[in-house]
């Protein structure tokens, strides 16, 4: 039959795979809860953006230090995280006092009170009298907008997932498509959790990049799983009725193994190049996109091979077992079933075979 270079018993080892995945998730979860809290972008948390304009060129690091030192003196803002960004006012001429703008971004739902704002302003004006720091604007960012966006993303993903299960159920009905589709989604959830923990472990804030990575991995993992299901579908057609689901899936996985690895390698090459170059250039926001994408990709390939397909075998076997038990319990049902079997020989053969598997167990 097919040339088969690998003979890995994915199904037999599936318990190990499940344990690895659950173990990693558990460790990450504990780290997440105890040591490394999730960082969320201001878009999703809400917060306050205060802008100061100033003239001249004071060192950015010094200005940031002044602000941070001031914050340390205020009890209410002691533990607030503040981000800095800089821009230029186009309307102002180059030696205007309002030429440069610094934005202070406070994430968190606590609004920065007027007195505290004044304290920061005073400190900046005292420290840099020549740069004439002046508050230009202060804006409260509404968290509900970000939450809304996040919710919208989740609903979009759920709609896509439901449609996807529907599609798989129809296209793969020969091998019981509905359960296959559900297992593909389980693998997806696995990958998304891994991507989430990557952001947590590497201390990157959950922002638009997170959504982009999640969507990319969703597409990739989906495609990967479908390609394997396609091979299962084909092998089911070719193989004799004596082949168990486990054997079927195992040989399919091994036949797809080279392809899965090679595709991962090429995609990893693409993202890896982006990652390495942006590391050299020090472009942090591309790093925060390429790194989790790369890890998600590895997880995506892994979950298709080691989670979705073996899980599906477990489910099929479980189904067969339930069927067999039902059969044992009622003889009247049995005769009815046999009648049905004669009508649909194909179905009968596969049902018989699945019962074989369960009796082996």
């Amino acid at each position, binding site marked *: 039959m097919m040339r088969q270079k690998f003979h890995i018993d994915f199904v037999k080892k599936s318990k190990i795979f499940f344990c690895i995945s659950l173990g990693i998730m558990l460790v990450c979860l504990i780290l997440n809860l105890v040591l490394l809290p999730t960082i969320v972008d201001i878009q999703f948390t809400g917060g306050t953006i205060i802008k100061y304009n100033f003239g001249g060129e004071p060192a950015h690091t010094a200005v940031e230090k002044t602000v941070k030192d001031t914050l340390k003196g205020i009890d209410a803002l002691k533990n607030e995280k503040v981000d800095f960004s800089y821009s230029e006012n186009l309307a102002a001429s180059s030696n205007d006092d309002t030429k440069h703008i610094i934005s202070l971004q406070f994430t968190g739902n606590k609004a920065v009170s007027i007195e505290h704002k004044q304290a920061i302003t005073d400190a900046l004006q005292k420290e840099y009298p020549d740069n004439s720091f002046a508050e230009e604007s202060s804006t409260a960012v509404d968290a509900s907008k970000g939450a809304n966006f996040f919710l919208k993303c989740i609903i979009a993903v759920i709609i896509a997932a439901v449609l996807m299960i529907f599609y798989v159920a129809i296209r793969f009905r020969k091998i019981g498509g509905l359960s296959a589709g559900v297992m593909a989604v389980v693998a997806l959830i696995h990958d998304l959790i891994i991507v989430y923990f990557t952001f947590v472990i590497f201390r990157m804030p959950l922002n638009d990049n997170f959504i982009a990575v999640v*969507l990319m991995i969703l597409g990739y993992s989906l495609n990967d799983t479908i390609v394997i299901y396609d091979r299962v579908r084909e092998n089911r057609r070719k193989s004799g009725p004596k082949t168990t689901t486990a054997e079927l899936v195992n040989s399919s996985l091994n036949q797809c193994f080279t392809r899965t690895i090679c595709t991962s390698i090429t995609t990893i090459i693409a993202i890896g190049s982006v990652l390495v170059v942006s590391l050299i250039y020090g472009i942090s926001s591309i790093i925060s996109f390429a790194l989790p994408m790369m890890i998600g990709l590895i997880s995506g390939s892994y979950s298709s091979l080691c989670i979705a397909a073996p899980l599906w075998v477990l489910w099929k076997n479980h189904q067969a077992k339930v069927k067999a038990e039902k059969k044992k319990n009622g003889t009247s049902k049995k005769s009815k079933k046999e009648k049905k079997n004669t009508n649909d020989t194909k179905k009968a053969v596969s049902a018989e075979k699945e019962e074989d598997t369960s009796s082996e167990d």
Partner: protein
Amino acid sequence: MKKIGKPVFFIVFVLILALAYTSIFGVYGENGDFDVTYIKGINDIRWGIDINGGVEAVFAPADGIDADETQMEDVKGILDSRLVGQNITDYEVYPDYEHDRITIRFPWKSDEKDYDPDAAIAELASTSELSFKGGTESSGEVLLTGKDVKRAYATYQQGNTSSAAQYVVGLEFNDEGKEKFKTATSNYVGQQISIWMDDELLSAPTVNEAIDSGSAVITGNFTSKSATALANKINAGALPFKLVVESYGTISPSLGSNALQAMGISAIVALALICAFMLIMYRLPGFIAFIALIGQLSISIMAVSGYFTIFPSFTMTIPGIAGLILSIGMGVDANIITAERIKDELWTGKTLDGCIRNGTKGSFSAIFDGNITVIIVAVILILVFGPANILSSLFGVSTTGLIYAFGYTLLVGVISNFIMGVAASRLMLRSASGYKFLRNKKLYGGAKS
């Protein structure tokens, strides 16, 4: 299997090269002193605010109006449509209900050289109230407003007298507007009606007879661009109050000024490495897969830049690049699946042609199902986050261009994958296998024949 002629390989190859060259470098010429763009290249792509920086502005209601939350929502919705109308999809809008402020950020336009942020900001802040008035004075009786218009569109109209064809803005009234317009035109037969956008007189036609068709055109010295802009403005609707620009400024590119250069370098490095990998792993099919990949990327770049000057450039953002990378992965994957199949077939000892036939046939369902499921995801994202906004009843009208960009590049990438990664690459493979020196099975990963 129908035999594919030997020259087909070269025809497809040359076509892909031409496509790649023009989509990357563009085609430019000179017309006297002017530089003319015939085909847009990579440099004409409009980069998102997350890559190239852009403009930030804070708007507040004029004359100290205290806006309530619904009004602010309306303002936000209208600003959303105006930005989308200007083909700015990668923008951020932060309404601040407490202080009645709206912060807007959007990236530089692709034709940055003559881009005037002042004008763009002013246009966003204008009330943009369309009105039909009796007589030619701005104080004339208001007959209809933009609220009576169902749809406005730019179109091209042949002048009815000796005048040349010109761009006009067509209006379609809603039921109420149709009635109003009928009454107005019957009242003003033989007199002039003037059409205004805020305080600007657009045109003042003389009414010949009562019009009950429910449609009208606005003439004026429009170009294709200004007619479209006006139509978009009318469609977006009028603001409940005038906005003033409280502050505005630039956003330095959040990725650093050399982000684009870095991205270019990484693209070249990635392509070179993928090429090497495919050649080593799959030899001839690998080489063909690489050409197809270049073709696929070219189509994606075309779809982003607009390619022809009449199409505006799409905004390319980081999620857009994510979509592109995913579609590259899918494109290479299609070829890997096929090449692996052919390898498998070769080990069974069949003839080369039979192996290629079975390999391409056997791999199609996997590629098809994989790509279709990804298309489902892309289409849902485009519908939810694009102008269609299918969830707007739940979440209100808003366009988050970042995710839209992902869906767009992914969809385009997957479609071009079918064209290049599947169709073109198979054509090339079958055609190339017609050459005697390319018939060695070793070139396809099999044992030597």
